[in-house]
Each structure stands twice: as structure tokens, then as C-alpha cells.
């Protein structure tokens, strides 16, 4: 059965609140947790669930995402049959390349949908970090004879005003009520923007949606289904941890949350490994006078100063007498001698020069853009 599922990840979400972090990259390509990109989690979940055909729909500033995914080798998605399909927008007479929602994006990629052979499709957005057991999710759907199964979470951290969709789920798993982008969510279950349905059914929904001039999957397709009940929509609960990557604060919080070993172990489950692109760095070198407390550190760093409550990506350099507290430092960032930084996010290759002091408020961390030298 499991070979009969394909995955589609839509990566065109709104990223305005991530400021400089998504200036040059999609949310899916945002570096997190020291060595991953946001997309790694869902992509690995799909692969761990037996999915061997995954399409990644790209919308804008997708160069970094394409660079990261490459041939799909790291996720074992480089086979002769199926594998990874990178689907950038292509401009035709009917297609202007700008998608107004998932439905719109699928319409531009109907060829990929119809060419694929799998019976089921797992359709997801990319802005929620989680690590569900996709195999169980699909099995639930197949066994329940629902038309569509939505994945949801009771995690209150996912509730947002004016964005997302929220569900009321009956005891038999049926979705009885749905709110789309409410002013304040009143329903407790957050739709995790992951759903499973038959490929042919999805194709018919896309065709119908196009005929009616619809763009949005949740508002235009799912909501009417739940409200007038012409299709059976079920929901499956994901009980693991999840984070919505929709603002700098949310990004910061996720990285700080996983410093907690208990939370980290719930996200990085041994049986559901998270794969990512390999960089072949040597192990991290700690100097004679290094002090390091409650931090996650990837390979290839050289740490000679003090690091507290921070997440360091590959190739970061912390000089002697530098002090880093509550910070996220992306690949190849440097903090020079005598510098003190607190509540900062350093994008790739950012450099903090000698004796600089940079203290952000904990509720609103400072973002230092890529390649910036301070």
C-alpha cells in the first residue's frame, strides 16, 4: 500500500513577518536547529512514511531551496522511478507564475499530478515544523474511508489571529466545524496544513476550483465541504511538538525550545530520522578556555569563547573572550574577540567584529542579515 502515496509540498507561504530572514529564501529554506532547513522535517517525514515521489512547488526566491534539495539524494529521492520533483513556477499563456494559493499552484502543476501513478497524495504546506508518522496518518485515512483526512494538533502555540485554519473534531474523527483565518480562533484544534486524499479526487477538486475561479484550498474547497457535508472530511491528531514559522519571534522560539532535551527528543525521534544536506565538516573544536552552557552546536565550529543558551550552525567561529548569549548563529557566522551579543540572530556569514556589543530585547531579537559585518 505504502508505495502508492505521493507527496506535494507547497512552499509559497507569506513570509513578510520573517523580515530579513526570508529576503532571499523561502520559509522552507530557512536554516533551523543548527544544521537543518525547515523543509527537511516534512520531507523526511514523507520519506520515512514510505513516500517515494515528492513534488516541491516553488513560488519565489527559491534559489536557496533548490540548492539545498539538489537531486534529492540526501532523502533517498534520486531513484530512476519517481523521486524528487522540483516544480518552480513556469510562465505560459494561461499561467502568470504567481500563485494565489495552494489550489492555484496545483492548477499550474496538473501535469505532474496526472503523470504520477500513486493512488494517494499527501498535500502539505511548508511553514509548520513537525515530525509526524506519515505512515500511521495514511493508514488511518485508508481505513476510515473518509474522502479527505486533515492532520491537526492541540498545541496552543499554533493558534494565530487572522491566519491558519481551525477544526472541531467529533469523536468518530469527523470534522464538524472549520474556521479559516478567523479574527480569533475559537476552535481548539489547529489544522497543520497536511492532508491526505486520493490523487484523482484532488485532480477533480483542482479542476472544479479552476472552473469556479477559486484559489485557496482551505477557504474555497475544505470549508464548504465541512459546512455542507458533501464530502467526508476526517481529522487525525498529531501529538508531537509543532512550530509555526511565521515570524522572527516564532523562529527564535523554536530554536530556543529545542535546547530543552525533552522537547528535542520528541521532535527528533530515533525511528523518524530527519535528513539534511551534508557538508563534510570536521568535528567542532573547543579551545582551552571555552565555556559552553545549554547549547546546540553543529560540526565544523571553533569555539574559544563563551556560549550560553544558543544554537550554532556549521562552521561558526567564536573567538577567545567573545560572549554569545541566547543567540542563533547560522552557517559560518563569526564573533570576534571581546564582542558581546545577546538575543541576536546572525544570518549566514555574518561577522561581529572586535569588542562590538549587541543586545536585543528578548521579545524582539535583533536580526543581522546575511554577509553583514558589524
Amino acid at each position, binding site marked *: 500500500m505504502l508505495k502508492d502515496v505521493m507527496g506535494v509540498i507547497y512552499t509559497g507561504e507569506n513570509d513578510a513577518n520573517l523580515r530579513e530572514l526570508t529576503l532571499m529564501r523561502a520559509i522552507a529554506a530557512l536554516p533551523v536547529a*543548527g544544521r537543518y532547513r525547515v523543509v527537511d522535517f516534512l520531507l523526511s517525514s514523507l520519506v520515512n512514511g514510505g513516500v517515494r515521489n515528492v513534488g516541491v512547488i516553488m513560488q519565489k526566491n527559491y534559489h536557496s531551496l533548490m540548492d539545498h534539495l539538489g537531486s534529492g539524494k540526501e532523502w533517498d529521492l534520486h531513484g530512476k522511478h519517481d523521486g524528487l520533483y522540483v516544480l518552480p513556477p513556469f510562465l505560459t499563456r494561461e499561467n502568470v507564475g504567481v500563485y494565489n494559493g495552494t489550489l492555484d499552484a496545483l492548477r499550474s502543476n496538473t501535469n505532474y499530478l496526472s503523470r504520477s501513478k500513486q493512488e494517494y497524495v499527501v498535500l502539505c504546506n511548508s511553514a509548520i515544523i513537525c515530525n509526524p508518522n506519515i505512515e500511521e496518518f495514511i493508514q488511518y485515512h485508508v481505513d476510515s474511508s473518509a474522502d479527505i483526512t486533515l492532520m491537526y494538533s492541540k498545541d496552543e502555540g499554533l493558534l494565530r489571529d487572522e491566519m491558519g485554519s481551525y477544526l472541531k473534531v467529533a469523536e468518530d474523527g469527523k470534522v464538524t466545524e472549520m474556521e479559516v483565518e478567523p479574527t480569533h480562533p475559537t476552535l481548539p484544534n489547529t489544522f497543520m496544513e497536511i492532508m491526505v486524499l486520493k490523487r484523482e479526487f484532488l485532480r477533480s477538486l483542482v479542476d472544479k476550483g479552476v472552473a469556479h475561479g477559486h484559489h485557496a484550498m482551505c477557504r474555497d474547497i475544505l470549508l464548504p465541504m465541512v459546512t455542507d457535508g458533501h464530502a467526508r472530511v476526517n481529522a487525525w491528531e498529531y501529538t508531537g511538538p509543532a512550530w509555526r514559522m511565521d515570524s522572527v519571534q516564532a523562529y527564535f522560539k523554536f530554536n530556543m525550545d529545542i535546547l530543552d532535551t525533552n522537547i528535542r527528543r520528541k521532535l527528533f525521534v530515533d525511528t523518524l530520522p530527519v*535528513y539534511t544536506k551534508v557538508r563534510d565538516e570536521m568535528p567542532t573544536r573547543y579551545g582551552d578556555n*571555552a565555556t559552553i552552557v545549554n547549547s546546540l552546536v553543529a560540526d565544523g565550529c571553533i569555539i574559544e569563547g563563551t556560549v550560553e543558551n544558543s544554537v550554532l550552525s556549521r562552521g561558526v567561529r567564536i573567538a577567545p573572550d567573545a560572549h554569545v548569549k541566547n543567540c542563533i548563529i547560522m552557517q559560518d557566522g563569526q564573533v570576534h574577540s571581546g564582542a558581546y551579543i545577546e538575543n541576536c540572530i546572525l544570518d549566514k556569514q555574518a561577522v561581529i567584529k572586535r569588542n562590538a556589543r549587541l543586545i536585543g530585547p528578548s521579545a524582539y531579537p535583533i536580526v543581522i542579515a546575511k554577509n553583514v559585518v558589524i
Partner: protein
Amino acid sequence: MMRKKTCVAMLLAGGQGSRLGILTKTVAKPAVPYGGKYRIIDFPLSNCTNSGIDTVGVLTQYQPLELNAYIGSGASWDLDLNNGGVFVLPPYQKGKVGEWYRGTANAIYQNMAFIEQYNPDYVLILSGDHIYKMDYNKMLQFHIRSGADATIAVREVPWEEASRFGIMNTDVDNKIIEFEEKPKQPKSNKASMGVYIFTWEKLRKYLTEDEADKTSSNDFGKNIIPKMLADKQVMMAYMFEGYWKDVGTIESLWEANMDLLSTPMPIDLHDKKWRIYARNPGYTPHYIAKGATVSDSLVTEGCEVYGHVNHSVLFSGVTVEEGAKVEDAVIMPGAIIRRGAVVRRSIVAEDAIIGAGSVVGEETGNIAVVGHAVELPAGVSVSAGQQVDATTTF
């Protein structure tokens, strides 16, 4: 029909490395972990790929399982190619005869058909026993320029140690005039590194003759090279400068790991132009907890440190629990050091568990070793130089 290759590499990975004691009881020496995330064989394989040599035969014989699984498709070293790539070559049945590799030369002889497929001009012979970064292409260019039939890589060793090595006596142009295995009175300090380039046509002739000679022990050092010298073939010594370490013993393996902790590192593994590739186990970044101390050490992804680590190398996925102390030690992948245990001047092998409060090694003396997947009980002592395997009782 394969496309022609200028040079094919043959990596001799069949040795047991018995001087590594219990560390090579279940794995071949080239598969022994080194430097936090590597295995010894990553060095010759990465050197090949960085030197533009993309066809490598790996000759295995002793405990090949782990090595085979480790090499896999060769993708980690960019050696998963349609034309060329890395091939694991165990001994196999030929017609009615099937035999083990009897010596280094015999191992190559038995795989002549593999080499011939690529119709190479030159063959590079390597071993999986050493830690070094070397551009084999420079050596090949030297071999071609000097019109040699064979070129042997040598490095200068301290004179007082020369009698432990195979020594090449050369003329002023680095032409080899004599080869002496472990000479009592060395005339030169140019020691062979076990890296040879042969013009394939010549080597094929000598391998065939050597095979026909029933008295030969079918070894490069003992038979092929002396025979070629006696026949006045052009044999050149290629001078190598840089870090080169034989990790053939427990002490030298430990030392080679400790070398990575000196400043500057005698072998630069940060070098972006000469990366050492390894198979990646895909762990999360390592985590250093509140209350832990880590100094003067290498720590790899997947480690969790709650205790104290000083002047040590922690491989992927190692756990050091609260109050445990690790000093001057090499802790291989997946090992766990339980609460309050003390590990000093030791090598703890893959997946071993050091029980709570146990003491392994001493501040001075020989290196203690805890073997692969050994579960050391709580509260025991392992003295300096002791080797503990699954059969050791306390």
C-alpha cells in the same frame, strides 16, 4: 566497453591490523574510527577523489562486512559513477579454483581483470592504514615526467627511527638504487609510505612472473620491488612532506587522535580545498548541557555532554552523563559514559557502555581499551594498558 582511464587506484584493505588488539576483532583496520567522524579509509578515498582519481578498487578480505556497508555506493566520496567509481573486491572463485589473497601482490594479481577493463596507463597502489592528505595526481605527474616504471612515495623520518621502516636508498636525482626493509644500519632516512605508482604494462608483467614463482611470498615490498630493482627498471622516490601517521597500534591510534588537539592542527581538516569526506550518520547538532564543561576537545554531531570533557575526542552520538569525567580519551561512535564514571588515557570503542562510577585508564601509563559494544559494569576499574572485551570478567 569501459572508457579508458589514465590511472586506476587499488586500495589494499584486507589486513587485520592485529596490533590494534580488540579494536580490530570485528572490523578490518581501514574501518577503524578516527578523528571524531572519520574512518581510516576516508583518507585514501578522499585523497583519490580530490586528486581526480575516480576509479578505485578496494581489496577486502578480513571482516569485510562493516567496510562493505560503510563504502556502500561510494556516494559519500563522490565515487558513485557510471564510468568508474569505487568497487569492493573480495577474493572470489575462478573456475575450479578459489583462493584467499596470499599477499599484497597476489591480491592485485587476482584482480587484473578488474584493472584491464579500464585499460589504464598507470596503477596507483594504496593501503588503508595511514592518516595523511596527499595529491596523488602530483605524484602521477612526477612519475610520468621522470619516465619511471615505478614510483614509490617516501618521507623523511628521524634517523633514529629509520631502522623501523622500509628504507629507499636513492641517488641525487631521487632514483632508487637500493631498497632495505628495516635496515640495522640505515643509509638513508627516506621511508616508504606504502604508496606506489606503476606503469601498468610493467606491473602486469612482474605480477605474472611473480605468480609463476612458487617460492615468492607475493608481496610488493618483499618480492615485486626488489625484483624490479634487480632488473634495473627505472624506480623513482617521490618525496612527500606533510603529516603522515601510521595508526597501526593502540598507542599510535590514540596519539593520532590527540594530534588533532594540538594548535595548529598538524593535519588541517578544515581545509575546504581538500575535504576529507565520510559517511554521514545524520545526527542532530551536539548538545552541551548546563553544568557541563568542555575544553580542548573535539565534539561531533549527535553527542550529548552533561559531564566534564577535557583534551578528548568524542565521536558521533557519544553521551557523557552527569558527573562523568573524560580526559585524554578517544570515545568512539555511540559510546555512553555513565554517571560519575572516569575515563582517562583510553580508547572506548563503538557502542561501548562505561558503567556508573567505573574508572577506565590511569593518568599515566599505557592506553586502556574498552572493546566494541562492551557493557562495563558499574563501579569497576580498568587499569592502564588493559584491554576489555565481552569475555573479560570482573
